[in-house]
């Protein structure tokens, strides 16, 4: 049912959210559940991961979003999804602070740990754009709201990072192992 909501219905629900309607917030959260769970999985640090599952984290974020929904009206963002994402990341941060005092949070999670050589060579903003645009699958518009760079700038920077990656040849994790195949034969 949620997937069939059109743009106008979503706008209407957003207006209800601003007025403090908790049910509307729940509906909109459920609408973004798939995208948010993907982001949660990608952004959870290992410490947080050991403490709770993605579903529990989303439940906590959902409660936090309902509790703080009136803040959406005064938030600088005009995209509810970006605001929900902000709430989710804040929830992760709070849990992270609670559980991982000794690990010295780097902000990196398990999946991003391996290609660090190239990722570390990127500037903070380029790295964030790559993560937002590619891994979190945000649009240029949404990335622009988060980073404060124009959508055109996001588009250009995203492609520049990919081109740099291609030139650095850090690319493909799977390449045919010719030695293995030959030995097999």
């Amino acid at each position, binding site marked *: 049912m*949620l*997937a069939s909501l059109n743009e106008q219905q979503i706008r209407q629900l957003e207006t209800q959210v601003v007025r403090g309607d908790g049910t509307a917030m729940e509906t909109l959260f459920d609408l973004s*559940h*798939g995208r948010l*769970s*993907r982001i*949660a*999985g*990608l952004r959870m640090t290992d410490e947080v991961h050991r403490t709770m*599952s*993605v*579903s529990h984290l989303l439940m906590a974020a959902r409660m936090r979003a309902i509790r703080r929904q009136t803040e959406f009206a005064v938030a600088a963002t005009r995209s509810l999804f970006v605001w929900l994402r902000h709430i989710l990341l804040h929830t992760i941060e709070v849990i992270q602070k609670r559980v991982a005092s000794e690990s010295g949070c780097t902000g990196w999670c398990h*999946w991003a740990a391996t*290609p660090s050589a190239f990722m570390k060579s990127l500037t903070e903003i380029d790295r964030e754009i790559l993560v937002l645009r*590619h*891994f979190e*699958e945000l*649009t*240029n*518009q949404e990335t622009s709201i988060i980073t404060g760079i*124009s*959508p*055109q700038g996001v*588009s*250009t920077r*995203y*492609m520049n990072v*990919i*081109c740099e*990656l*291609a030139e650095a040849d850090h*690319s*493909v*994790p*799977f390449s*045919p*192992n010719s030695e*293995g*195949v030959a*030995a*097999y*034969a």
Partner: protein
Amino acid sequence: MPEHAELVLDGLSTVTTNVDRSRDALEIIASLFLEDHRRVLNPQIEDYARLHRTQAASIRKVFPVLLGLERKREIATARVRQEQFPHSLAITRLGQYQLEPETHRTATTIVYRAIHTRSAGPVIVTVLPWKAADVPRLRLQFERETAIAKRLLHPGIMPVLDVCCDDGYFFFVTPSIAGIDGAALMARFSAGAQRWRCISRDDWAIYAQMGTQLANALSYSHEMGTLHNDIRPGNIFVSRSGSARLLNFRLEQCAQASLRQEFTNNAPVVSLYVAPECLTGCRDERSDVYSLGATLLMMTTQTSDIATTPGRQAAGTSWPRSGRFLRREANRIPRCFAQVLQKSMAADPAKRFSSASEFATALENVGITLTERTRNSVGVRSRVRSWASRLC
């Protein structure tokens, strides 16, 4: 969700919905490519390069990197999905089907016995245990794979009766036939059972007959332009009467993606059922022939899980070793059968049977030979018995 834009492609303007001139032209094409890839449409880099000639060089350079990043994202997403695999689904009915307790689970599905409410007939319902809206790509993949199976009508292929989405859950329905899958059969025999229904542990002729049925089914699916891409004991259904059927056809790109995941894992144990050329991304009918040969060999020798037996664990640690391991296992079965299976599993595709139908014919001949041999030995045995009884 890609933001659509007006694309100027080699002088031709493609009009789409929301015009956004602020976007980098290559980024728009890249977004379309990724969207196709995420919808399991298997887009080809060369096709994009041909279509967008002015950007061809950049496409060839950049898109492999996009695919590399995409694989990393897929691995992370699959991990999250596995963590969210529900302990149980709070549903008792899906569409026209009344669910009974679940029978088993796979990596991405829960399988239930069910009753069709109108006909009161028993069926098997396989459910994707996440809300379809939360796993849009997995749902797409399932839809496509079930669509493939639905159009294949052959006695050697498990038919798909219905494909539905209800209460947010995607599921498909197959007939309820008494029997078990090949992996379960192997497990029973390796646990010490001598017989299951009409199949006895060392009855080579019946394995050859099952192989013939499966190879014929495979030949039919190849004629229909469909590769199975994932033949292994778990994807073979054996009925109580001893007939075998193929289950779970996979999309080529999904099979390739799983193979890449296995290969990029720290422990490079790649499934024994995967033909070596698949590592380089080349699949054709002969890859299925290899997988069927390996599956039959493992079933006849009752070799269960290579990772559970220390000797076999070593065999499975790398590709070349697993090939030698398979050839060694073939020594445990009758020579004529082993020769056919070894030919089907030749490392070089050119040395294998050129088609599944050729493999089926070879297996049929083996079946006849082995049946005659069994009949003759039974005849000698019974003659000796009657002679002995006359003496007594």
